[in-house]
């Protein structure tokens, strides 16, 4: 394939992702019980556009599946198919499958046709169609026609007291067929000027334009050619238009447009055939006949469909110029498209910009350092200019970081899929509630959060929520609820995963930890400490390993991943009420405020947010507890002391003396550790330079940065150091708890 084609294809897949996002969004809204037509339409349009694009690229699997999907959805749209929870769940699964198919098509991988066919079968079972799964191609051809079948099918039966509307402007059947396909036509306007219209100086173009102002228009020219050119009446009118307007406006708005043309043209405003489109069922329908009514009565439900009408479905016929049925009116208004203009930029370019800004920050640090060394008076123009420069740098940096920030919505959407799959696997009914989807965090963080969140959600479904029987026995609703919330809080992003399950069974957790030798037999732990046990490697509470979780790798990995992002994780659990995990992340991953310290001749940066306070030790602070061990007494609490130089392997342990400088850090909620450093140099913003790619992960080191002198300094992962320091873990927790 040539390059331009690939480019187009690439942008199609990008679009697909967006469309898919819109689809899932809409389906989610439906799952929450809002079945309004606009929502269904959004979902339908998304699938329809995916199908259209896929067709253009010959991605047959995708076309076939999305076609079937679309068909059933269209049936809902027209009210033929009542929207049940079951159906919405099926739609959601189809949405998942669609994303799989899109991915497969993009990567050129073979698709899981068995799974997609299974879903197609399910879909068609809903639609009552028999031709499912088989020939999508045929289906494509067949589907639009059914609109007419439906009509014809119903017309003779006529049992519902539907008025037999007179056919207007007969069109060849193909035209109608095509007509039916544009998404969500709401009103059909048949407009044929009389010669008088032209004589009075009216211009149909303007009328058509005004129509287009109401909403998206699908305009079709009706042209009746004279049999013989010589018969042509030069002043006669042969052109007419059929316009499908997707609008919320009542038909009276259309009358207004044509106000000045009244009497000068044949005008006919009618309700759409939206009800009819999707029923693929009636195979026994008679052959299509050319005489097809433009004004279609809302099709009554096909007998074999397991349906009831939704409220919004128009039950009344829609004669010409009658108020548009509620079902159809909002059909195609692009209310959802109120997005400020955006530019799609290659992530790599942004990365480059971020890196350059990083360089700028480093350069500025170097500059200030050399100016300081020159001992230039602080009130000189140079110093003032430098201040301004620093201010600007900071602003630029913040703006650049904002470019990288993205709403967590896409992440949350992925999670809704996880909930669906997980709840199906363990046979629990679970509802995912999301909050703060618009909260923005760094793109890299979004990517890195997917795995930990997936794991936590699965845990919540599998372990967090009780089995349905237990829930009912405890007087809770049958359906479990998992809440996923994101918010900005004091310079950090907090993401919470909570469930309304039984809470952590602390007794069980404790006994398992004892059995596995993770805690000493006789240790008595507080609730908070027991909760922390979940983060220990090799811990698993599930009695049986289920398909979902319980393999003993889990929360410890989650914690490591969160920590590597510079985040923290905390648990809150109330028996019988639920469990809440809170992840708190720094806003940006590229810059952090750090304290520059020296240890054993090495310059290190400790993230400011991990430092609780800094202390200069006095004699009374230090209490010996063993031959070589000292604890620090801070406000009546005993805190273990670590020598940073020793922990990093730079030197042998120092004897801890008074006057030493200690940083008090909190590796986890409620615990404290003191770390000895030689000097505190500075407090400043540093640019984070990853070391993972070039070198790998270093224990106790989060990343590196470049200081004003061009040297590299390591950014410490204080919690990691504190936790990996031998023997500290449990001492910390217990002493703190006292």
């Amino acid at each position, binding site marked *: 394939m040539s390059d331009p084609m690939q480019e187009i294809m690439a942008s199609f897949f990008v679009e697909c992702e967006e469309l898919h996002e819109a689809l899932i969004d809409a389906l989610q809204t439906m799952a929450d019980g809002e079945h309004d037509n606009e929502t269904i339409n959004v979902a339908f349009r998304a699938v329809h556009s995916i199908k259209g694009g896929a067709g253009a690229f010959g991605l047959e699997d995708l076309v076939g599946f999305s076609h079937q999907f679309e068909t059933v959805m269209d049936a809902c749209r027209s009210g033929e198919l009542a929207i049940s929870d079951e159906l919405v769940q099926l739609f959601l699964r189809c949405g998942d499958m669609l994303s799989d198919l899109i991915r497969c098509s993009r990567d050129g991988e073979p698709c899981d046709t068995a799974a997609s066919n299974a879903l197609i079968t399910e879909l068609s079972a809903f639609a009552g169609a028999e031709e499912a799964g088989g020939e999508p191609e045929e289906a494509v051809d067949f589907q639009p026609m059914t609109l007419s079948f439906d009509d014809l099918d119903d017309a003779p039966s006529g049992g519902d007291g539907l008025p037999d509307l007179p056919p207007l402007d007969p069109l060849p059947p193909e035209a109608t067929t095509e007509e039916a396909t544009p998404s969500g036509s709401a009103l059909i306007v048949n407009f044929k000027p009389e010669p008088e219209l032209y004589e009075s100086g009216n211009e149909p173009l303007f009328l058509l334009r005004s129509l287009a102002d109401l909403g998206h228009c699908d305009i079709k020219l009706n042209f009746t050619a004279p049999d013989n050119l010589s018969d042509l009446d030069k002043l006669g009118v042969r052109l007419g238009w059929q316009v499908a307007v997707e609008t919320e406006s009542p038909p009276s708005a259309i009358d207004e447009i044509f106000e000045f043309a009244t009497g000068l043209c044949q005008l006919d405003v009618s309700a759409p055939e939206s009800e009819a489109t999707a029923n693929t069922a009636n195979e026994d329908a008679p052959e299509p006949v050319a005489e097809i009514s433009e004004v279609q009565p809302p099709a009554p439900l096909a007998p074999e469909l397991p349906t009831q009408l939704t409220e919004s479905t128009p039950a009344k016929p829609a004669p010409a110029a009658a108020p548009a049925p509620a079902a159809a009116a909002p059909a195609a208004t692009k209310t959802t498209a109120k997005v400020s203009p955006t530019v799609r930029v290659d992530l790599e370019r942004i990365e480059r910009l971020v*890196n350059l800004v*990083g*360089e700028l920050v*480093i350069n500025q640090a170097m500059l200030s350092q050399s100016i300081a060394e020159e001992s230039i008076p602080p009130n000189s123009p140079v110093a003032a200019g430098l201040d301004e420069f620093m201010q600007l740098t900071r602003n630029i940096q913040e703006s650049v970081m904002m470019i990288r920030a993205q709403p967590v919505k896409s992440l949350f959407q992925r999670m809704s899929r996880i909930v669906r799959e997980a709840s199906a696997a363990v046979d629990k009914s679970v509802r995912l509630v999301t909050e703060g989807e618009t909260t923005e965090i760094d793109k890299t963080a979004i990517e890195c959060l997917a795995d930990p969140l997936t794991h936590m959600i699965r845990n919540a479904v599998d372990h967090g929520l009780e089995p349905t029987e237990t829930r009912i026995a405890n007087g809770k609703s049958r359906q479990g609820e998992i809440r996923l919330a994101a918010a900005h809080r004091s310079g950090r992003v907090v993401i919470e995963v909570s469930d309304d399950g039984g809470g952590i069974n602390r007794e069980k957790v404790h006994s398992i930890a004892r059995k596995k030798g993770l805690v000493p037999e006789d240790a008595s732990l507080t609730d908070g400490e027991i909760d922390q046990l979940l983060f220990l490697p090799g811990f698993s509470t599930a009695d049986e390993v289920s398909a979902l979780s319980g393999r003993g790798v889990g929360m410890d990995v989650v914690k490591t991943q969160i920590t590597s992002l510079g985040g923290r994780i905390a648990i809150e659990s109330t028996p019988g009420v639920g469990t809440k995990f809170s992840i708190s992340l720094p806003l940006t991953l590229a810059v952090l405020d750090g304290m520059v310290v020296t240890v054993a001749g*090495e*310059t290190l940066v400790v993230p400011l947010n991990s430092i609780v306070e800094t202390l200069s030790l006095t004699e009374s602070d230090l209490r010996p507890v063993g031959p070589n061990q000292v604890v620090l007494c801070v406000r009546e609490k005993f805190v273990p002391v670590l020598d940073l130089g020793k*922990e*990093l*392997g*730079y030197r042998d342990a120092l004897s801890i003396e008074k006057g030493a400088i200690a940083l008090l850090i909190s590796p986890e909620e409620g615990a404290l550790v003191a770390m000895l450093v030689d000097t505190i140099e500075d407090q400043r913003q540093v640019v984070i*330079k*990853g*070391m993972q*790619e*070039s*070198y*790998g*992960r*270093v*224990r*106790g*080191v989060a990343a*590196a940065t*470049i200081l004003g002198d*061009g*040297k*590299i*300094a*390591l950014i410490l992962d204080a919690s990691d150091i504190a936790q990996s320091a031998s023997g500290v873990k449990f001492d910390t927790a217990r002493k703190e708890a006292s």
Partner: protein
Amino acid sequence: MTQISERDPNPADTNGHEQTEFLSFRIGESEYSVEIMSVREIRGWTKTTSLPHAPRFVRGVINLRGTVLPVVDLAMRLGLDETEPEDRNVIIVVDVGSRVMGLRVDAVSDILSFTRDQLQPPPDVATSSNAPFVKALTILDDRMVRLLDLEVVLPTGEEIAA
């Protein structure tokens, strides 16, 4: 220094006539080389920032125009005598696969060019500790040149974690 039994170089025949260029450098008394295509740049020695818990042969990291570049002390990596870095030393920045690393060597000596068939695999008898790192040997003006296998020389993730 290990001396490996010498053999006559194969006369260039069949294929592999194309001249390939190699950057040769000195560590202690012996001469090593790497394919020049994997060399990004050569820079003077700068003090490294040492990494905690790193293997001994990892000298630390340096700032290479804004990126963090790990530096491997080649002498230590190859199991040769350890020397304190001095200002005359150089860091050869190599690019292997997707990884960029610096190699600290004593000095860069030459750019050599020879054909593929002048290269011989190291004989099995080589028991020296640096044997796995040497991909091939060749003789040039009576000097033996060792061609290093950079894939092996650069530490893997496990080695670093160990």
